[in-house]
Structure formats: C-alpha cells, structure tokens
C-alpha cells in the first residue's frame, strides 16, 4: 500500500503513535490522522450520550432481574446502592418453578429451540436447491419464474395468514391427529404448522440471496464437473453447497434469529399451548396478564434475550451481514 510509504517518510503525529502502540495496522495510520482532526471533543461527548441513552433501558431491566421482588416493587433500580439486594430467585421462579401460576419458561425455551432449528434448516435446503436450479440449469422461462419468486418478497406476511391458517386446519390437522395416534408421545398440537409456515415465509428472500451467491460461482468449475460426468445432484452437494457456505451461514443466522424473535407467526400457527408456543408468545402473554409482576417479567425477558445476545456477540460479523441482507423480510 502506498500509504505505508508516505507515513514512514512523514513523522507520525501523536494520535498515530498511540494507534500504532495499540497494535493497529500501519496502513490505517493515514485515515487515522485525518480523523484526529475531524473528531472533536463534542462529537465524542455526543456519542457517549447516545450510547448511554441507548443502553440504559436494557441495563435497568437486566439489573432489576437480579433484585428481590420486594425491592423491584418499591424502589427504582438506580437506587441499588442505597437499597442493595441480589437474588437468583427470579430466574429460578420463571424457569424451574412447577407451580401453575409461574411462567414455566423451561418448556417454552425448549419450544423456541425446537421451532427455530428446523425452521432454519428446511427453508435453507429448499432455497439452495431452487437457487441452484435457477442459476445453473438452463431453461426457457426460468428467468421469468425467478423474477416471480423474487417479487413475492413484496407480499407482507399479513396477506398470507388467514388463508394459510384455513388451509392448515383443513389439510394439516388430520395429519397431525394421525401422527398423535401413531406416536402418542407427540401431542396433537405439534410443531408442524409453525415449521411449515416459517419455511414458506423464508423462501422468497432465501432463494433470492442464495441465487445471487450461487450464480457467482465461476462457470468453469461447474462445467469441469459436468465434463467429468458429475450429475446435478453431485454438483449440488459436492461443489455448490460447500462454495455457498458463507452465504448460507449468514442467512442461517438471520433466519434463526428471525424465527427466535418472531411473535406473529407463532401467535397464529402455534395454538398457544405449552406444547408448541415459543418464548416470545409466552412473554407477550405474561405482559398482558401479569404486567405488574416485574420480578418475573424482567427475568423472563432476559431468558428470551440470552440466545440472540450470544449469537450477536459471538458471530457479530456474520450477524451483521445476514441482517443487512435480510432486513426487508416480513
């Protein structure tokens, strides 16, 4: 990089020296110098204020979730130093308590996982198959078909809910009942409708994004495999899927979080029982019926936030990529 040469000739300013001391790459030194003149103290203070404002609500709830019920009810969380108190009882209560009146989030937590994992895998597999066909199986009319699928992104979820629910109760319900008869351990209310609904709603966007990626695979690679006598199935599994992994991973994270955080689809297709309903649905229910039980609400909210936050902090780069790609979904 040419910048490296320049900065070794010019004496670096103090800001740059500090940057270098903290082990930043040298080519960043030039923008860094520019920035030193750009960022004023006021900007930093303004940024700090925004950051604090944005964090306080979550922080307050988080802190409160560890305070005894009595203290939450009578004092503000910001008075924690005057009114100290720490307890894990709230979490114990919402997660493990067998009493009927408590939230019993354990079951719903399992549901959230049991919904989110298949509802991420199913659409991704079908979408990558379709994306491969759209990109690499030459056929008349395929392009028009692709545009049609792409255009389906403009249909809001709300347009599909009523008829799809009717369709499920006519055709899927007998199948669920049959499943329950064959395997009694599986309740009649099962995950099937939620899985299918999430799969369908994810498809247009997933096909579009994966197509963009899969179509970029150099045609030499595919042609070479074809010349060697590989079938479409082999090409798909051995070449396309491994090469498309980054795109698949990004979309998988996005879809997983989308399903995990979803409320609308769950409300309509889960039936709302402990057998199927995810955490979000239970939480919404609790705010409605027990909106004043803050010791439970605070802890319950954090139980539901834990998974997204882990994903967010551990996979931030993929997370951002997936989120930016999928931000118009719904």
């Amino acid at each position, binding site marked *: 990089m040419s910048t490296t040469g320049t900065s070794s000739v010019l004496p670096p300013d103090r800001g740059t020296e500090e940057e270098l001391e903290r082990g930043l790459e040298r080519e960043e030194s*030039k*923008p860094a110098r520019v*920035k030193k003149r750009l*960022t004023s103290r006021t900007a930093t203070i303004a*940024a700090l204020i925004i*950051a604090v404002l*944005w964090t*306080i*609500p*979550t922080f*307050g*709830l988080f802190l409160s979730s560890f305070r005894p019920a009595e203290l939450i009810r009578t004092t*503000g*969380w910001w008075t924690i130093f005057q009114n100290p108190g720490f307890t894990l009882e709230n979490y114990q209560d919402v997660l493990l308590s067998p009493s009927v009146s408590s939230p*019993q989030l354990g079951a719903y937590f*399992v549901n959230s996982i*049991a919904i989110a*994992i*298949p509802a991420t895998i199913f659409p991704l597999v079908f979408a990558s*198959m*379709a994306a491969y*066909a*759209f990109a690499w199986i030459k*056929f008349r009319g*395929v392009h028009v078909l692709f545009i049609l699928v792409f255009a*389906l992104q403009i*249909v*809001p*979820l*709300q*347009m599909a809910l*009523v008829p*799809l629910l009717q369709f499920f109760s006519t055709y899927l319900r007998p199948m669920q009942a049959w499943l329950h008869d064959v395997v009694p*351990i599986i309740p009649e209310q099962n*995950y099937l409708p939620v*899985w*299918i609904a999430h*799969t369908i709603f994810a*498809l*247009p966007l997933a096909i579009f994004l994966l197509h963009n990626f899969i179509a970029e695979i150099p045609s030499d690679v595919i042609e070479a495999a074809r010349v060697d006598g590989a*079938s*479409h*199935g082999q090409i798909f599994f051995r070449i396309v899927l491994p090469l498309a992994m980054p795109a698949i991973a990004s979309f998988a994270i996005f879809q997983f979080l989308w399903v995990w*955080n979803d*409320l609308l689809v769950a*409300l*309509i297709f889960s039936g709302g029982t402990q057998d199927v309903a995810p955490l*979000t649905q239970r*939480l*919404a229910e609790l*705010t409605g019926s027990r909106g004043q039980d*803050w010791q439970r*609400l*605070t802890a319950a*909210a954090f139980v539901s*936030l834990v998974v997204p*936050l882990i994903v*967010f902090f551990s996979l*931030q780069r993929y997370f951002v990529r997936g*989120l930016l790609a999928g931000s118009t979904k719904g």
Partner: protein
Amino acid sequence: MTTEDLLGKILQVVMGLVVFAAIVGLLIFFIDKAPKKGRDYWQLAGFLLPALILVAIGLVWPAIRTTFLAFQDNSGAWSMDNFVWMFTQPAAIRTLINTVVWVLLVPTFATVVGLAYAIFIDKSRGERYFKALVFMPMAISFVGAGIIWRFVYEYRSGDREQIGILNAIVVAFGGEPVQWLQTDPINTILLIVVMIWIQTGFAMVVLSAAIKGIPTEQIEAAQLDGTNAWQRFRNVTVPGIRGSIVVVLTTISIATLKVFDIVRTMTAGNFNTSVVANEMYTQAFRASEVGRGSALALILFVMVLPIIVYNIRILRQQREIR
C-alpha cells in the same frame, strides 16, 4: 414440563429432521436417476418444485384469496363494507393515522441519529464497542424490547416511589407522574421511541460502512480548501452516501409499516395506539372479522409496495455502480 413432554419434543424435532432429510435424499436420488427422455425437465422439477409448491400454497394463493376476502362481508357476499368501515369509523381512521405517524417519524429519527452517531464514532477509539452498544437492540426480539420499555414507562400512583425511570425523572424535576402508555397521544410517540431505539442501530451500521467507503482524498481535498467539519459533512459525506441513506430510509419504512409486536406487547392497540398490522391481527384473529382483517392486510400491501419497488431499484443502481 415433564420428562415425557421433553422426550416428545425431542422426538418431534428428530423425526422432523429425519423425514426432511429422507425427502431431500429421495428427491436428489430421483433427480440423478431421472429417465433419459426429458431428463432436463425432471431434474429442473426436482430442484425447483419443493420451493415452488410451498410458495404457491403459502404465499401466492393466500395473497389472492386475502384480496378477495377483503371485498366480502362475513356471509361471503361481495361488498365494500370493510373499506367503508376502514375509512369512516373513528377507531379505524385513527389506526391509519397512527401508521402514517409511525412511518414518518421512525425512519427519519432512526436515520438522523444513526448517521450522527456513525459520524461521531467514526475511527474513534473503541469504535467497535460503541457500535455494539447501539446495534444490540437489533438482535433482541420486539417483544423483549417491549418489556424493556414498559419498565421504563412504568407508573406508580400517588406518593409511592416511581420505579420507571421516565416517571422518576419527571418527579425529580417536580412534575406529576404520568400513565404514559394510557395517555393519548403521547403513548403512540412513546411506542415509536421503542422502534427508533431498535432501528437506529441498523441505520448506524449501514451508514458507517458507507462513510468508510468515501475516499480519504476527497475529505483531505476539502480540508485543504479550508472547509469546516459541517461543510465537509454537507458537501462531501452526505453526497457520498446518498444511496445508502435512501436504502436505510426505505428499509426502515418497510419494517415500520409492518410493526406488530411492539404495539401488541406494550398496549395491545388499546388507548388509541393501534396500527394497521396490529389491527389486522386483532380484527382477523381476535374479533373474527376476517373481511376487515383482509382489507387491512391489503392496505398494508398497497402501502409497502411502492417503497419496496423503490428500494429494489436503488439497490440495483448501487450494485451497478460497484
């Protein structure tokens, strides 16, 4: 939850995955063993049909049917009643007005704050941590966000100590505590604040990336010309990221039009806070007014349509430039 329940759930997931894998495996097997005659057709069908069938059942047909339902009354006869209701009943009109207020305020504020923040922290020390703090709300569910903010807006009557920080601040300045979520019209604004809180992170991340894409030379040249920070922002930064700003505005607008969970969790649409997406759910699934719900869904579609088309066009242009 008993152990048996848990076992049933695990079994369901395992069975679901196994059956799914079997279906896909069979499909691929038949694709490769397709009859020689019309082989291409079979292969194309094998790859495409699962997705196409699902989409046809779950999106195409329902969208058409919802459109028809919107023009029918509860007995199934053709009528415009649903739209008459929507544009004449005060509560329904209020829902439409609220939606317009949402879609005006959320994108504007989220983008302005996001852009300001992105510029303030650009190349500053600890930029990553600054970003993570504001972006974090994007990761959590709208339901979780709803609970977080309900706690901020919590109200205690009489002389009892306030536990919601907003009322605590009001009281500290000598004011009377307010039942924020029950007081119209401030409650709608406060719900909008929640959405702004969530979407600002999105705006910030996208715009921050765009700002980093502006060539340093341009900014240095402007500096040599003796411009101040504001002039550089107006004349170099903003033109350089115009495309991204439009994408952010439109994307947030779409998300805002469809907002449901926040309203549902915080007020359930009571106290004049309902919006179209929430009212659609309430009418169709709570009040059994399928026609009205469908009409609202259709209105939602009509509102979202131009924004999405515009958004896609801008995205395409940007891609061509790159």
